[in-house]
């Protein structure tokens, strides 16, 4: 009797926490999505009204579109962190210090980075406009069609998402670099030696040996970084001072959810948004897993 119940004793705390903080909220949010609820008055059942509203609401589609655009960070992160991993994967003096340094943005925290970004891109006092002036690029910048230099990076709608994405990349590249570094170091040396004998030069060697060898890491990074890109919030929140940017230029799906739920008290409607987010995440995960499986079959 004792033996047979033991595993459940060990599992109980985790399962209780899971039920209370994940499963129950999941059911609750699904239920709330069929109601109109403003926290003050009790929820009123409205059927599929929230979903109909949502599908006909341009702001929702704009937010969804922004989240899809945000996925550009995934290929960017993959390319940059592979290059960086190749760069630090060699025995040069001081290489350990470089690796550690590149990891620091990962642990820094989004509020600090947001403050740094706002201050780097400030129109009149920022280092970026300063550097552009110093390099004599102001005429060139003015000719790009975003207005005359110095540019208003923080308030011009077309820059809100790119700035947030640059923050995501800057904070993430060190993490993914280490993932790729581990991947590179698991590739046997013989493969590189064979490639050299076959007449590969430095870059061909990486193309023919490193990239195929990194395939599992690439899939891992693609999955992790695209899921977190879909759910981006902090970067937008700190860069736009919680405003979502001019003309909602930085409102992504999670920011929209937050705004509807916690600023406008449209709890029922926000729950419907949350459920759409779940469906998108699910679809994404399934697509990613399929892709992973196909990759493994090809590798065999």
């Amino acid at each position, binding site marked *: 009797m004792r033996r047979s119940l033991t595993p459940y004793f060990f599992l109980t705390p985790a399962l209780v*926490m899971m039920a209370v903080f994940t499963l129950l909220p999941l059911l609750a*949010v699904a239920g709330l999505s069929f109601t109109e609820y403003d926290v003050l008055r009790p929820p009123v059942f409205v059927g599929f009204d929230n979903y109909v509203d949502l599908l006909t609401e341009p702001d929702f589609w704009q937010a969804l579109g922004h989240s899809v655009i945000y996925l550009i960070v995934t290929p960017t992160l993959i390319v940059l962190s592979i290059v960086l991993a190749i760069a630090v994967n060699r025995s040069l003096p001081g290489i350990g210090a470089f690796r550690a340094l590149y990891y620091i943005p990962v642990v820094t925290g*989004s509020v600090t980075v947001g403050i740094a970004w706002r201050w780097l891109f400030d129109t009149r006092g920022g280092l970026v406009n300063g550097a552009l002036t110093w390099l004599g690029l102001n005429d060139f910048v003015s000719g790009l069609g975003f207005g005359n230099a110095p540019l208003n990076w923080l308030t011009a709608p077309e820059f809100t998402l790119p700035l947030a994405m640059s923050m995501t990349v800057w904070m993430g590249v060190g993490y993914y670099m280490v993932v790729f570094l581990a991947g590179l170091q698991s590739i046997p040396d013989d493969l590189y030696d064979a490639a050299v004998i076959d007449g590969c030069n430095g870059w061909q060697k990486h193309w023919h040996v490193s990239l195929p060898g990194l395939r599992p890491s690439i899939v891992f990074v693609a999955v992790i970084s695209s899921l977190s890109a879909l759910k981006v*919030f902090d970067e937008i929140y700190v860069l736009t*001072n919680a405003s979502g940017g001019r003309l909602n230029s930085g409102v992504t799906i999670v920011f929209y959810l937050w705004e509807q739920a916690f600023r406008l008290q449209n709890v029922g409607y926000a729950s419907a948004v949350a459920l759409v987010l779940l469906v998108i995440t699910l679809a994404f995960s399934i697509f990613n897993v399929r892709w992973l499986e196909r990759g493994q079959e090809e590798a065999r």
Partner: protein
Amino acid sequence: MTTLTGSVAAGRRPTRWGMVAWYAVLLLVAALTVIPFLWLLSTSLKGPEDAVVAMPPELLPGHPTFENYVRVWERLPVWRFFLNSLIVATVTVVLNLFVSALAAYPLAKMRFPGRDAIFYLLLATLIVPAELTYIPGFLMAVQLFQYIDTLQSLILPGIFSAFNIFLLRQAFQTVPDELIDAARIDGAGEFRIWWQILLPTIRPTLATTAIFTAVGSWNSLLWPSLMLRTRELYTLPVGLNSLRGMFESDFRAVAAGAIMTVIPIMIFFIALQRQFVRGLTSGAVKG
């Protein structure tokens, strides 16, 4: 095994010009990494005589001073923010690891009805975005638990982590069965086996799991800013965010606050950088 400071097996020693080229790349990236911090640092040390808004910008403070730090320190309970963050991170890590390691043991080492079902249920929760639970989580915090505006409200939802259960399960699987069987023959109960034999053998995994959980808790912004109302309960990210409002146009003070809040996590990282990287390479990418 990779460490940030360790030498490299796969990399070969390049030619002299190759070396120069690689150092150029490494230094460029290093500059891109460091410049945002240095720019904040420089601004935070600028005195009232130094221009903050100038074109071209003044790179270095002409009259360096700690005045801005003092001003922030006097206006905001930064020390409390730090303490709150420390309490939340520490208690979250301890409880999370305790609960996760408990659950990981039977999943790794026991056969019992429902094991696969429970395992897949846990797997499924990995897909659920945390943001999804914020709306009901908030309502529960207000109505059910009535713990809004307390540190508990930051700790309790952070205890369950399917990801940590998986990492620890993987680690437990590498422990030889003979070790557990021998202890059973000696009459040890399952809890004692878990506590005295299994946990010590997976200490490195516990350490890295703890570190990543701590950093996640330390930097989290959205949930704490939903929960906390009283300033004395703010964590560092929430406090730093409120500082931006208080010192709206006072860039020197905001920069000083940002530098102050980044120091503890820097120290933590530099002290534990080996564990950071071991965690990434052992758990994540065995695909």
